[in-house]
């Protein structure tokens, strides 16, 4: 079996793998957006910049202090998450009483600031991030070679996504969170510190973006612009999935990554636009999104 649908098997599975990897990042980023949106009612435009900050943080830790990949996986989301907490406390918290669109405008401005600053210091060319020793090499699956690191990214992102789903849907903390999404005033009346929960939720969502950034660092070049175009695709993913459900966001993310990968095989010209085309189709058929509820 060397050909399938007239396409060499190697190429087909290769693109499928790339699609799956992209899908893992779509899933993690749209998950963070959905969690933030659920509680803050804000679309976090800075998400792409925070993803980039996570990647840069890992690169910086390695180049300056020799802090390796595994520690970065923990430290970068924490550090970037703290910046998120500061942003929420000092800026976003002033906007909750206003129209939600102001949150979008504010985070858009912040994204420009962050991207501009990083471009100033690091230029627009990418910095390579050395692959950790233990991930060098690949598995031979018989029909293709699967690089170890890529396998790790898929598995790790699945764990992160399902872990987030578990915390939100199956634990007491998650129950508070969902309750506060429905009716913050009532939850506060029960003695739960809702403002602090909002702050930590934003920090968590930002940390999730940074974690995705660290995982992306060895695959893509670490560059100031790496998040800018990605975030627009993630917006389309969010529109397609609808922000109503956590599992929906995960499924849509991975699914669209695979669709994009397959498009690269069968009709490469459309691979940049296929997700947007799907968004148009979904809007025509089910405006609330595949997993969304019309509210």
């Amino acid at each position, binding site marked *: 079996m060397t050909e399938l649908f007239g396409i060499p098997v190697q190429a087909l599975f290769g693109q499928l793998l790339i699609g799956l990897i992209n899908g893992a990042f779509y899933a993690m980023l749209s998950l963070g957006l959905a969690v933030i949106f659920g509680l803050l009612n804000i679309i976090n435009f800075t998400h792409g910049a925070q993803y980039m900050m996570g990647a840069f943080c890992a690169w910086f830790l390695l180049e300056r202090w020799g802090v390796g990949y595994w520690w970065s996986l923990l430290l970068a989301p924490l550090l970037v998450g703290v910046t998120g907490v500061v942003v929420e406390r000092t800026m976003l918290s002033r906007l909750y009483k206003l*129209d*939600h669109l*102001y949150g979008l405008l*504010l985070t858009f*401005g*912040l*994204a420009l600031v962050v991207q501009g600053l990083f471009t100033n210091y690091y230029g627009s060319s990418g910095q390579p991030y050395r692959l950790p020793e233990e991930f060098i090499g690949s598995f031979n699956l018989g029909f293709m070679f699967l690089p170890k690191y890529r396998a790790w990214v898929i598995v790790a992102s699945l764990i992160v996504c399902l872990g987030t789903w578990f915390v939100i849907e199956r634990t007491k903390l998650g129950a508070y969170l969902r309750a506060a999404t429905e009716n913050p005033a009532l939850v506060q009346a029960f003695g739960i510190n809702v403002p602090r929960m909002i702050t930590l939720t934003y920090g968590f969502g930002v940390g999730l973006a940074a974690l995705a950034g660290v995982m992306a660092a060895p695959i893509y070049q670490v560059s100031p612009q790496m998040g800018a175009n990605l975030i*627009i695709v993630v917006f389309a993913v969010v529109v397609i999935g609808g922000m109503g459900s956590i599992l929906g966001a995960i499924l849509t993310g991975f699914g669209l990554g695979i669709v994009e990968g397959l498009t690269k095989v069968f009709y490469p010209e459309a691979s940049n*636009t296929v997700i947007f085309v799907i968004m148009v189709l979904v809007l025509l058929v089910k405006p609330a999104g595949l997993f969304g509820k019309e509210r």
Partner: protein
Amino acid sequence: MATAPAAQPPSARAPRRSTILVATAVMAAALAVAPFLGVYPVFLMKALCFALFACAFNLLIGFGGLLSFGHAMFLGTAGYVCAHAAKEWGWPPEAAILAGTAASTLLGMVTGALAIRRQGIYFAMITLALAQMIFFFYLQAPFTHGEDGIQSVPRGRMFGVLDLSNTLVMYYVVLAIFLAAFLFIYRVVHSPFGQVLKAIRENEPRAISLGYDAERYKLLAFVLSAALSGLAGATKAIVFQLASLTDVHWTMSGEVVLMTLLGGMGTIFGPVVGAFAIVGLESYLAGFGQWVTVITGVIFVVCVLAFRRGIVGEIGAWWANRKA
């Protein structure tokens, strides 16, 4: 989530009609003499094109409450069609500009019909995604010449008489287009249509219950805004003899949001003031590279946190308070 109301801060009482007409006359007169006072006409033309773009955008956000994050697609589409018609087909400038505007109007109909299916934040994300799709289309389509853009577009003779290669003639043509569109927008905002649009912005379910077809009004506002943005883009292509990817990129969509926000959303003169301020700032900072992006971002943040009414909105509020 309740349906997102308009992104409209509590504004001061609307200024009286005579005030606006006088201010418009003053603005027109100032712009007419500006080239003789030593202001560089190319700068003025650029600012006027962006002012028209921002006014068109403001029609949608300021009076319709719809935040589009993809307006660059109309600016860029009109630019490409206009440049292509003028250069490859040898059309006269007035026909090329009309062709560009028509193309944007069509695009506005299609994208508008899709985008108004969702509201608030989703509307912004959908317009952004649609614009990105259009961007990739132009990036790959052969007639746009990719990164190079369509260069050295002939300015030609408008109506066969006005020689646009003369910078001053070109300037007055741009000024005439701008003023006509500005008055048209003023007229639209104060027409029964504009009033219904404001009613929908304030309370859509109520407007529907009064028997207005909210979707149709929103779509019409969107198409009008797209058409006027297209007019700005087509004019810009003739002025700078260039249509490029910059005009379709999402940063351009962000820029027009900033101009309107800085000048004052929902005010008649705000977008004009904002466009002149931003274009001025950019040409002043042209040598500082990426700092422009940083400063643009900072202005965004400051406007949202402390200055939501924008320059014109704040002046209006101060004026109203003083009289009260």
